[in-house]
């Protein structure tokens, strides 16, 4: 019998794309669908997905918890857990439209909720850590349930299928977001599980990723020391937790966190000024297990912007462009030009060189 993701590690290739309005002006999902659809041949119909920021302005202070359930029993169990830990303002089916190529959907649900004050106080954790632990708990302990996303004013929409069909299925043309990221998946060995599609998210971090990291087990075993449970056995999950650990929990400045993941070569470090050199040596010594090795290009989304990063020897494609208030990032330049034929600037970032696009007026991620 074929085993689902989480029971077995499945490598995959992919297409990624991201569009952001730096002024925070929301725009519908048509462009991102058009962009990712152009790279149709980079995926094989076994996974597609989107992350969208700014889509729930009426509930912007509540955690928007998107869920997949395999059966009603899982839903009942998780709802009992959620009710114990959160105050739920709204619980509803995520609207979808019939698309012939999208088959066997799970129960797709969303909740707008905030942590129960008494439970939070009892746990002695800050609010985000509390939510992270609840998400980990559901993903590891509740059979047939999977948290698709758990951030505020954002959501992930994913499925087994080609990404353009997934966008249609979730009616993303009816949502308006100031950041959209998208993913088309080409897994090499999978029965196709909805939870295994990208983006992978935690709080308001979302990651779409193209690549297969060869450092996976080194990264995973390091992350597990900090209480993360890599239940899906996917690279993307590990990378998402890595951002959460380095930036939220270790409070590393963004550039330092990115340096840890795609560190400069020792040869380059030897040529640096002493102060810079000390910093780089320290990063490589302390965060050696956070170095992501092997081919990857990723787009990290969060409420304040998007960041794109390539592995340090550029083994996967990644192109960026700007036009007015818009920033575009995609696996291929054509995927940008199909929605923005004449960008102001187009460039191909070097290996390990991040593209950081933040909302105007925002200092840090």
């Amino acid at each position: 019998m074929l085993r689902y993701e989480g029971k077995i590690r499945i490598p995959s290739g992919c297409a990624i794309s991201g569009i952001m309005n730096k002024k925070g002006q929301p725009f519908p999902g048509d462009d991102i669908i058009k962009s990712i659809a152009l790279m149709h041949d980079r995926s094989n119909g076994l996974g597609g997905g989107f992350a969208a920021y700014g889509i729930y302005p009426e509930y912007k202070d509540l955690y928007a918890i998107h869920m997949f359930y395999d059966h009603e029993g899982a839903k009942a169990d998780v709802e009992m857990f959620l009710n114990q830990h959160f105050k739920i303002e709204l619980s509803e089916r995520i609207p979808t439209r019939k698309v012939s190529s999208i088959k066997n959907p799970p129960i797709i649900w969303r909740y707008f909720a905030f942590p129960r004050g008494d439970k939070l106080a009892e746990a002695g954790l800050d609010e985000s850590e509390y939510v992270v632990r609840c998400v980990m708990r559901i993903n590891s302990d509740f059979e047939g349930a999977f948290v698709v996303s758990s951030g505020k004013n954002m959501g992930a929409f994913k499925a087994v299928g080609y990404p353009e069909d997934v966008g249609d299925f979730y009616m993303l043309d009816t949502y308006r977001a100031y950041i959209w990221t998208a993913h088309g998946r080409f897994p090499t060995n999978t029965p196709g599980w909805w939870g295994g599609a990208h983006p992978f998210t935690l709080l308001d971090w979302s990651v779409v990723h193209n690549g297969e990291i060869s450092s996976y087990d080194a990264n995973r075993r390091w992350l597990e020391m900090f209480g993360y449970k890599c239940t899906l056995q996917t690279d993307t999950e590990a990378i998402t937790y890595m951002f959460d650990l380095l930036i939220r929990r270790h409070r590393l400045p963004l550039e330092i966190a990115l340096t840890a993941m795609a560190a400069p070569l020792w040869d380059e470090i030897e040529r640096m000024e002493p102060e810079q050199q000390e910093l780089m040596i320290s990063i490589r010594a302390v965060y050696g297990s956070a170095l992501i090795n092997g081919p990857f290009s990723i787009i990290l989304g969060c409420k304040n912007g998007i960041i794109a990063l390539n592995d340090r020897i550029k083994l996967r494609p990644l192109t960026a462009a700007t036009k007015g208030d818009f920033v575009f990032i995609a696996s291929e330049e054509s995927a940008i030009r199909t929605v923005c034929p004449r960008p102001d600037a187009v460039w191909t970032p070097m290996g390990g060189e991040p593209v950081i696009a933040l909302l105007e007026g925002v200092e840090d991620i």
Partner: protein
Amino acid sequence: MSFSLLTPEFIVERNDERCIRCQVCVRQCANLVHMYDQEEDRIVADDSKCVNCHRCVALCPTRALTIRRNPLEFKENANWTTSAIREIYKQAETGGILLTGMGNDRPYPVYWDHMLLNASQVTNPSIDPLREPMELKTMLGRKPEVLNVEDGKVKEKLPPQLKLEIPVMFSAMSFGSISFNTCQALAMAASEAGVMYNTGEGGLHKDLRKYGKNTIVQVASGRFGVDVDYLQAGAAIEIKIGQGAKPGIGGHLPGEKVMAEISQTRMIPIGSDAISPAPHHDIYSIEDLRQLIYSLKEATDYQKPVSVKIAAVHNVAAICSGIARAGADIIAIDGFRGGTGAAPLRIRDNVGIPIEFALAAVDTRLREEGIRNQVSLVCAGGIRNSADIIKAIALGADAVYIGQAALIAIGCHMCQKCYTGKCNWGIATQDPNLVKRLNPEIAARRLINLLHAWTHEMKEMLGGMGINAIESLKGNRLMLRGIGLTSRELDILGIKAAGE
């Protein structure tokens, strides 16, 4: 007793047509196997003294010599094997403990040979180390869990680290167990290759102090040669608790080997026996170890990492957790195949556990406790080649120690008679006539060549796995698959079976 029941273990075959009576063999054999009979003008051999070290064979200009195992056989018996019978004869004749040298040679499973490495195909490109950077640089020492950075600067300096160009160091071998020339060759090679060698517990000879940057100075139970200058002379300090070849056992350098240079280096009188007690007599518990670790750190101003070396024994994971919490910066674990200059045979062959299991168990335990960052792990004991190193790192080691492999590189033929002091290769001896046979420059060059070759091989294997920095291999057990192992063994190693 005049009559021995022991028959020769080896026989020396001489092709008389080739022999030119040059008598090189006669002069080279410290065991006095060969004798020239002037009257008959021929060379005869006393087979019973031969240890099969190949010195005469290698130096014979006409290739006239071969050493064979004596084909003489006892009646076949699966229980009373040849060695079991011979060992009893020896003990019945001498009344003594059986001694041996080098590592455990019993046919226990070698788990390195039951693990296979991964390589990239299609979904992930392999990397060609001739075209792309491939990094093996390794830093050993305590790492903080979090790096505090403020305004682009490091807020707290890193604890002291050992920087290695490749994750390989030369194991502890004392001046006394090995010759000065061997010590010098190891020091020179470590210095040129950007790695470390280890003094063992024999102190540090004054002429070798200039290699301090590449020296780990050892503090063992005998405290030989230890003073504050010694502690400050090296790049790191290692507290030796135990050794893989003889866990729970001390050491004994016989007085006849303690000549002027050794006496000076070890700081003991000429001709006195140098006895290392089994335990440190100031360490009877983990809290005592902590005191010694911090005494050494105080003495060196917290400028040098402190390593603790232990033998791989049953409860190694819990012990290592304690050592990490006691403040050690590096833990060296020596498996039951680790070498030695002298060990009781029964101890060497029956005490301790394989390094592969010990390493996997320790790495797993330290991760479960969330303290793996606090300490670097060095794996020792029977590492034979670059693939063993790659597998050790994938299991969770930061670096390895090599001892026997290094000695083989400079001429050791594994005759396992180090304890006799008659090493014909000038390695495990203090006899000046034998010592001078080992040219330190040539030996250092052979060691550097070995490290150079292994460096290339390690880069090829890493590149094949799609990894270009050694830290991405550390603890990356998905790169390993087991073959011919039980599921229990796979569980302990934390790896999957081939095909999974």
